[in-house]
């Protein structure tokens, strides 16, 4: 069985997200203009191409990030770690 989670990350560039996935142990397997595929021993991840939307007079990047794993705990663990990196509190 495969477990998966798709996230929509706003406000962070794809380059930055690329760095985060690598820091968490992902190795780039392949890439094209639409998608980058990463693999680790417990999960895989794809980053979509970067889109932008205009909000608060700012160009906000949007990237869709998908994590896949055959182990539910491993998926939960990587999501927690990834979200800690992407979290922005604002204020």
């Amino acid at each position, binding site marked *: 069985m495969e477990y998966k989670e798709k996230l929509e990350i*706003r406000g962070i560039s794809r380059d930055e997200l690329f760095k985060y996935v690598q820091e968490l142990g992902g190795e780039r397997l392949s890439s094209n203009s639409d998608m980058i595929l990463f693999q680790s021993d417990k999960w895989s991840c794809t980053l979509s191409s970067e889109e932008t939307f205009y909000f*608060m007079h700012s160009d906000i990047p949007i990237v869709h990030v998908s994590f896949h794993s055959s182990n539910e705990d491993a998926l939960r663990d990587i999501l927690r770690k990834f979200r*800690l*990196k992407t979290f*922005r509190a*604002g204020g």
Partner: protein
Amino acid sequence: MNLGGYKNHEAWVDLSKGTITYRQLNEEDLRNYVGARGLGVKYMVDHGVYNVDAFSPDNILAVMTGPLTGTRIHMSGRLCTVTRSPLTGTVTDSHMGGWTAARLKWAGFDNLIFTGKSDKPVYLYVEDGKAELKDATALWGKGVRPTVKALEDLYGSKDTSVMAIGQGGENLIRFAGWMNEDDRASGRGGTGAVAGSKNLKAIVIKGTQRGNMPEPALPDKYKTAVKAGLKAINEGALTAPNKGGLSVYGTNVLMNIINESGALPTRNSQTTVSEHAEAVSGETIREEILVSEPTCHACPVACKKEVEVTEGKYKVKVESFEFESAWALGPNCGTGNKEAVAYMIDRCNEYGIDTIELGHVFSVAMEAYEKGLIQERLDWGDVDRMIEWIDKIVHRQGIGDLLAEGPGNAAKSFGDGSLAMVSKNQGIPAYDPRGIQGIGLGYATSNRGACHLRGYSVSAEIAGLPEPVDRLAVEGKGTLLKIFQDLHAFSDSLDICKFSAFSENADLYAEQYTAVVGIELDADDVMKIGERVYNIERYFNNKAGFVGKDDSLPARFLEEKAGGNSKGEVSHLPEMLKEYYDVRGWKDGIVPAEKLKELNIETNVGA
């Protein structure tokens, strides 16, 4: 102590005896609570001031910095004041920008802690690791600007910062704040009134950057951390200098957005949409009355928006026209007169009172008059009478004496406490809990009373940052809010500007802390320290008598339906609160002993 960033030097000023004791910092406290907000509340707990009257000489007034203050770390120019609030009775911390915090470090101090009460007005002069109390009798009765000018004339303006209270603090207006450099405010919670109760008029700080910047523990990592922080801010979608919405329009970029969401509290939250929002919005202000964009120490964002009204009876030049101030004195009071709002903000800065709370006492009085509860006439949008009443409030004349006690107390005096849009007796900010569910939970559970800056879930609920969250959904909000609150508690302990948090993550805060202080932290450590700070604040409040029933919102938000694009909504606080307490590990708003132990919070101190 061998940590970087700190000066390892603080002054404990006993105003009753007129003595000053210099102390070194406790390394264990710094490891657990970092500085500023966290260390300040630790001092409050250490001294057990849970139940002292806020205006008693026994209350503590702690002016605090953090380890990053005065360094080259960007957006680190915040100063924090911690005390028991005369408005809420909770512990409170209130922060301001400018240059005062950095200069305090450059003058050789981490913190200045005031106890007791002077028998005559005094100010504290600080330079080169020494502090001295001076007679302020000639300054008493003066507003903030004349006080700052008189002290700058005496000591020279070069390398000098003056933080002062105005007549609001002197006259114990329960929402009086500290001001520095004329228009930077520690607005919330009445910290200026506590200073007034101690006869403390001002603090003059002389500190030059050259040769006095705190030494980072790890110089090589420091260079990298400074660059990484700047890169994040410069490339941040909202913070990029002269490009991002927060840099170009300041906080008031939010006015139209929140209004369009149907979440702008209007006319004392009787509705959630205002026809006046556009007139006082960041866009209008930029186009019509903006004159300059000053900034704080080490900040490239420059969110401050100085405005000038060049003619007419509201002629004024004031920094700054913030979203919260514009809302509180504008749509909240039924007006879009931006010139009059600017004029009122200026009066608040001169007297040293909180614009948000002032807006609330006005809107309470307006609704009370509308309902026939009071005879003193104050109509929605009557800006001239509002201006007139500011003087009455600050000088405690007539109805002003009741309003000076804050919106909650004033509403009770008028016979209907439910008219006050407060939580723990502090007025709500500019986001309606019916249209943004998570922020309502944030108001209710904020340890310093209703506040958006304890847990800014608006980022996710309105802007969708970093992930879109349905602003009207209930499930998950307790879990989400805890993350916001814990990260803010850490950044307030550094003490770094909240705007940095639009672009910087916990990793980056950890990197900057590690480089400066020399203690290796990671993102999980950052969140754990934030959780500890949030829990020790809650512990203080529990000891002061606050329990679950105080984590509340006004009935209006639970019963009366919102309008506009939030039409039909009410706050679902009880459901969110249950989830929140579960994730916090609290029982009915109380921190249990096992949670204190888990977080290594000492409880064998204080009264």
